């Protein structure tokens, strides 16, 4: 009985979908010209791919940006989650789409400049194969420890007189890279223990299973403010406004800025006028209150720069990291 009922609902929603699609198609052909407002080329809906699960920071950013973009361009913008392989699966799908500006993706910087250091040749997508629309924001990593550990600075860790263990949010992540670089430069004997994401890593740090861990600031801030966790350093280039009293690793004397960064990608070969319309649309979306509130709530630092600047920054990051990793003999993949 219930099964029948549900089937009917499915069938109905399917019919509704078809109807909606045909209506949108009509709108594109007939209604597009008559509208006085400037419309996005073609009037077709835009799909924004997200390579992570719904509910995570990348997904939230994509949804907030999509909403603003939709209002500005006058076409529906739908977010489609295609999780897998740290976003590589979504990137692969994006590369196969038409470069007409109607399929975009929120691309994580770690996939561009950290994952290639951990996985085999050719297993991570190359950003040279994509057009970059715009930068979005930066997300900072912070090195935390449980108050009971007695550590409060990098010097304390160096003086521990024993090998220390550090939790990472996974192999090939900024969490791993930031700590590997810091401990190599500080000449601290340390073992990486990869966990499956930020929350299990934090639990392990809180429970003293590992000595320290590096997680994204937004995930740790509540515990830091309540005194449940002690921040040691952030890996930002300059102190993030959300955590003004904690030194950066650079200030502590180690050259290891590692940040998560996000940008909007498109398949290679988007026509100039379409690209310009998208860029204008995103800039307008960034001005909306909802989007700015999201940045603030999630402790994100805006980096709403042009796509080409992102390409330069990310390429430079990859080159820099590759050089340091080789210099210190760090193997992100094999050393665990």
């Amino acid at each position: 009985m219930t099964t029948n009922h549900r089937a009917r609902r499915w069938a109905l929603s399917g019919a509704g979908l078809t109807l909606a699609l045909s209506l949108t198609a009509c709108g594109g052909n007939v209604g597009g010209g008559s509208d006085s407002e400037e419309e996005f080329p073609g009037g077709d809906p835009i799909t924004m791919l997200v390579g992570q699960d719904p509910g995570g920071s990348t997904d939230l950013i994509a949804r907030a940006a999509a909403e603003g973009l939709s209002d500005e361009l006058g076409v529906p913008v739908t977010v489609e989650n295609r999780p897998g392989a740290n976003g590589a699966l979504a990137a692969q799908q994006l590369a196969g789409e038409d470069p007409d500006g109607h399929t975009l993706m929120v691309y994580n910087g770690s996939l561009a400049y950290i994952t290639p250091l951990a996985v085999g040749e050719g297993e991570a997508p190359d950003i040279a194969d994509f057009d970059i629309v715009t930068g979005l924001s930066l997300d900072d990593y912070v090195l935390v420890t449980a108050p009971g550990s007695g550590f409060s600075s990098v010097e304390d860790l160096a003086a521990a007189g024993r090998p220390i263990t550090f939790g990472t949010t996974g192999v090939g992540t900024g969490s791993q890279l930031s700590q590997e670089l810091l401990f190599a430069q500080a000449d601290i004997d340390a073992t990486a223990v990869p966990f499956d994401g930020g929350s299990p890593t934090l639990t392990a740090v809180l429970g003293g299973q590992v000595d320290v861990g590096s997680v994204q600031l937004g995930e740790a801030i509540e515990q830091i403010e309540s005194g449940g966790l002690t921040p040691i350093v952030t890996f930002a280039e300059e102190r993030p406004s959300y955590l003004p009293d904690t030194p950066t690793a650079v200030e502590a004397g180690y050259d290891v800025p590692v940040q998560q960064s996000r940008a909007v990608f498109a398949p290679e070969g988007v026509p100039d006028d379409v690209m310009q319309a998208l860029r204008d649309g995103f800039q307008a979306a960034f001005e909306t209150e909802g989007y700015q509130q999201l940045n603030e709530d999630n402790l994100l630092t805006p980096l709403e720069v042009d796509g080409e600047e992102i390409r330069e920054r990310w390429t430079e990051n990859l080159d820099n990291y590759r050089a340091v990793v080789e210099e210190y003999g760090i193997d992100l993949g094999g050393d665990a």
Partner: protein
Amino acid sequence: MDLAPVLDGFAVVLEPTNLLYCLIGVVVGMLVGVLPGLGPAATIAILLPITIGIEPVTAIIMLAGIFYGAQYGGTITSVLLKLPGEASSVVTVFDGYAMARQGRAGTALGIAAIGSFAGGTISIVALSFLAPLVASFALDFGPPEYTALALLGILLVATVSSGSRLKAVVAAGVGLLLATVGRDGFTATERFTFGNLNLADGLDFVPIAMGLFGLGEILYNLEQRHNATQAPTTVANVWPSRQDLRQSSGAIGRGSVIGFFLGILPGGGATLSSLAAYAVEKRRSKTPERFGKGAVEGVAGPETANNAAATSSFIPLLTLGIPANATMAVIFGALLVVGVTPGPQLVTEEPELFWGVVNSMYIGNILLLIMSIPLVGLFVKILRVRPAILAPITVLITLIGVYTVNNSVFDIVLVIVFGVLGYLMKKAGFDPGPLLLAFVLGALLEDGLRRSLLIFDGDATGFFTRPISGTLLVVFLLVAVYPFVATLRNRRRQEQAQDTSDPNTKELV
């Protein structure tokens, strides 16, 4: 114990949406309980994708309702038609059907409903006290503890489950192997991915569950010949007499305790506890010869126990993130789909979800008690829906549903592959449950072991020097060694028996 979150949990349940979904859950549960073949694990697996659109707590309240609701429904067909709707109601057939033939079907159903309600409720109360206690050790649960727990879980799944032990071990072995597929989380090396990015994160749990339980069961059921049994039209006298109640009160009490404890154990659950409760009642009875001929305790004990177990099997899932049986494994998947990681942090980080789900069980049990008595006739009519109509619709929903979880065509292929595997397994007498459980626990075991060894710097004695993991490993050793000791003792006793008197002694059980 801080009562505020518990009370907030009631506020969550009493929201109209949640009440509605609780009702939907228990009704669906009762329906699938009535339908032989389609079990709660399959139903929950098939319905997984619809949880995406609704609030996590609402979704889990509904899925939990399906599980314990099925325990009620399974009883009805056992008593009336000698056709157990669920494996956990098989033993109810013995005395329940006998009572029905004596014209006491109403009494049997009434006692079963009252027992189920009592068992369920006692178990929820115990859960409410025990779960936060377990969760208070949450931070002490590090990788070594998870390793030990996963190890114990896999052992129990393979040895304690009802059915052939060898086949369970084989299925669990396959599950462990399947858990190794994917990019290794420690070295980023590809394992069995054949260069396919869809496999980089390993096989997804949801399509496996939907394939093995959903599609596999549907295919298997299609093969069974459908015998439309005529149900008795009138069920009179649902309220048991005072004498019946007095007779079964002990059985209900013992059934609650047995069910509660066996439900917590990995591999235990409703089926095992109903068998154990029946055995206990028969052994304790002064008149064991009445059993099988309509003894009311023979219905009360197992029916109480299976409900108590259905509730208590939520404890390891909600407090440690370890599923105790196949249905819990599917609910584990549901929690992941709605973005909640079950584990020690759940009680403190998501108190509304935790207490909302726990407290919804009180309401659900009351709803079931109210419904199960007047609606018996209606539910029995469901049996007349022809599988040829039901099956294609269910298959379609399964395939569309799995696509919506990850927007992935690859997942549809996976469901079909695992559906065929599930069908073949059932046909060959393998229970797919241990496979699914070992698949979940295998990933926990490997990650936990490797993390522990990194933390211990390669020194495995660390497992035994930590109090919790040490204790768990001792239990593991006891459980592993016990069957050998038991056989040895049996053989010695047999030899003694042969020495002393009759050379043709029957095998001791």
